[in-house]
């Protein structure tokens, strides 16, 4: 079993918790796991990416290469598009429909690509595109977008419902556990 998961978004969107949960799930199941992320400059509103590699043997490189991701979890639509070449042929994408305009687009220096939806549909065998922000708000906080997205992607991941609940209980602050469980269920139902 090998699963490469790329989590992409915009600095400040909370991509880190998603990777912490995934990493610890893998650890609980005695898989090997490596994660890689970039801190620093890009966290100031730049594009951010976390690589998660899980294997029942060993993981060498912490980085997912172009064409190696089984799953891309995207917190923002343009970022889904940016990282698309990393998706394996036949891979799955879980995309939050939110759009955050990058400054060059806001300033009119470049256009926001018009054909994102078609390109994503063409490249991904499974494409789940939905308003994760709205579901997170329904669950009680816009910050729960990460767990909504994980809920949606959980269908393609080798962990049981119980294991997910277990890891949420362990790694989410006590007062947000119920909210996040609800957010997870909402994502899962998409």
């Amino acid at each position, binding site marked *: 079993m090998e699963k490469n998961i790329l989590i992409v978004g*915009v600095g400040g969107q909370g991509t880190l918790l998603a*990777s*912490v949960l995934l*990493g*610890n799930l893998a*650890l609980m199941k005695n898989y*090997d*796991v*490596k*994660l*890689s*992320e*970039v*801190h*620093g*400059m*890009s*966290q*100031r*509103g*730049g*594009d951010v990416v976390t690589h998660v590699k899980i294997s029942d043997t060993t*993981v*060498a*490189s*912490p*980085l997912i*290469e*172009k*064409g190696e991701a089984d799953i891309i979890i995207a917190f923002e639509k*343009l*970022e889904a*598009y*940016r990282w*698309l*070449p*990393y*998706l*394996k*042929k*036949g*891979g799955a994408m879980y995309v939050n429909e939110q759009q955050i*305009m*990058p*400054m*060059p*687009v*806001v*300033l*009119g*220096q*470049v*256009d*926001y*690509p018009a054909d994102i939806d078609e*390109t994503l549909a*063409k*490249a*991904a065998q499974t494409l789940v595109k939905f308003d994760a922000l709205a579901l997170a708000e329904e669950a009680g906080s*816009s910050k729960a977008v990460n767990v909504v997205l994980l809920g949606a992607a959980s269908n393609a991941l080798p962990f049981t419902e119980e294991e997910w609940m277990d890891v949420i209980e362990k790694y989410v602050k006590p007062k947000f556990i119920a909210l996040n469980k609800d957010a997870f269920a909402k994502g899962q139902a998409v």
Partner: protein
Amino acid sequence: MKRIMLGNEAFARGAWEAGVRVVSSYPGTPSTEVTETLAKCGDEVHVEWSPNEKVGVEVAVGASIGGARALSCMKHVGLNVAADPFFTAAYNGVTGGLVVLVADDNGCHSSQNEQDSRYHGRGAGVPVLEPADPTECKEFMKLAFDMSEKYDTVVLVRSGTRISHSRGIVEEGERVEREVIPYEKNFRKYVAMPAMARVNHVKQEQRLAQIAADAHEIMAGSIPLNKEEMNDPEIGIVTSGICYQYVKEALPDASVFKLGLVNPLPLQDIAAFASKVEKLYVIEEGNPFLEEQIRAAGIPVHGGKDMFTIQGEYSANMLRKGFGVALPDAGIDNTDAPGRPPLLCAGCPHRGLFHVLSKLKTTVMGDIGCYTLAALAPTNAIDSCLCMGGSIGMEHGFEKATGNSKNLVAVLGDSTFIHSGITGLVNMVYNEAKGTVIILDNRITGMTGHQQNPASGKNAKGEIAPALDIATLCRAIGVKNVFEIDPFEIKELEELIKAETERDELSVIITKRPCVMIVKQTEPPQMITDACKNCRQCMKIGCPAIEIKDGRPYIIKESCIGCGLCAKVCPFDAIKKEDK
């Protein structure tokens, strides 16, 4: 217990288990979390943020002379700043184990260059250990302390972005407490004067030779420091650090000589490996540090920098291409996604200043910090950025070259000013500069993730500490014209900058407003009312909370923190606070 740890957390854990007692560092991506993690330990470790890396290493040297295990951490360019004490401490050796951790940034994720710190290790004549995953981060750090004491040497641990900022599974161990070694005066060892230095230089060379000879049997816990992995003899690869992982990924059948010790090189062991393989390749990011030494030793190298670049990061795919291995099958090769450059945050106090400087078309000798982002569109308000503290010297030199200090300023942050701007300012006073220096005091070291500094009023552990008063310091140096101002008072700020850059005397302007990431938002968001004439002045401040929607500026409620700068620049008074 097994835990998932960031490489930097694993380094911290290793130092803690090794009984480190004194840690003195200056933040710098990607090294910062080592010290931040140690700062969360109990009183068994004294952790402090130093004003710069040179002081950090000097404090660690003193702690080692005093008999304790000591660590100083920094990013690659930080080691340039600390090079002076580092090179001489390398002659003197240690009492308590002394380790310097340096984290390189191949690919310039968060840095002004991608220099290769291995040369500093070789130049200083100290052993350099390079781990390849989080478990090795922990084990090599422990080994570094042991080697430091065993061989009486400073040890350099070299990391990089992908080592420091990758997570993996690490088994935690226990801390071994070490008594502080009682101090005995030994001036021949610790007083670096010519007569002593000549003797200590000889000793330094001897211990390096000893380490190279011992290398094949040195173990980091149960991990051999250097490791020969014989597989298919057709391809033999010498590599280290993160590149080892790329090799295992792309060429799982190749024979590999993995170096954990990259200085001194065990050239005899490498020669023995070379004789067992058909073609020898050297795979290393950055400069041909290993390759040149291996070639110089007369060992034939079939491929190295002639195959792979000096610039940027390597990857498994890069090696696959180089060795003719099929690439993974991507559905789509490329997309034309527009770039998403990082930005000053919504509500960032720096935005007020750069709005004014951009408006005045001031020539700005810039510096390193969040504010460097003002060099990008739409403010485009920075003309140069070189190194920490460099703005002040450059401003002075520019003035001396052109004979003109009008509409010219140096701009730097509080942490950067304390790091190495103070001496530049002393120089301006001494050499009768007429220029203007603007210090952006946001009460924190922002860019690297909000570390405390000598002016922020707290120490590395978050406890209350004396706060340096920057204005008083400037006056004490001899600057006569010192002003403090809120950077969001843009009218007053504009007048002040105009007046001071016109004045034929040195001035310092300190803009004071705390970083938005450290103060809670209390203001309701702004909104654009029907009075908007779509003139787009508000777009010129480059705030991430302002977008264009249906052809007009629009404020994203969730992103706006209500700082009100956009309302101040609006000529039609069309931006108002939302009702609470």
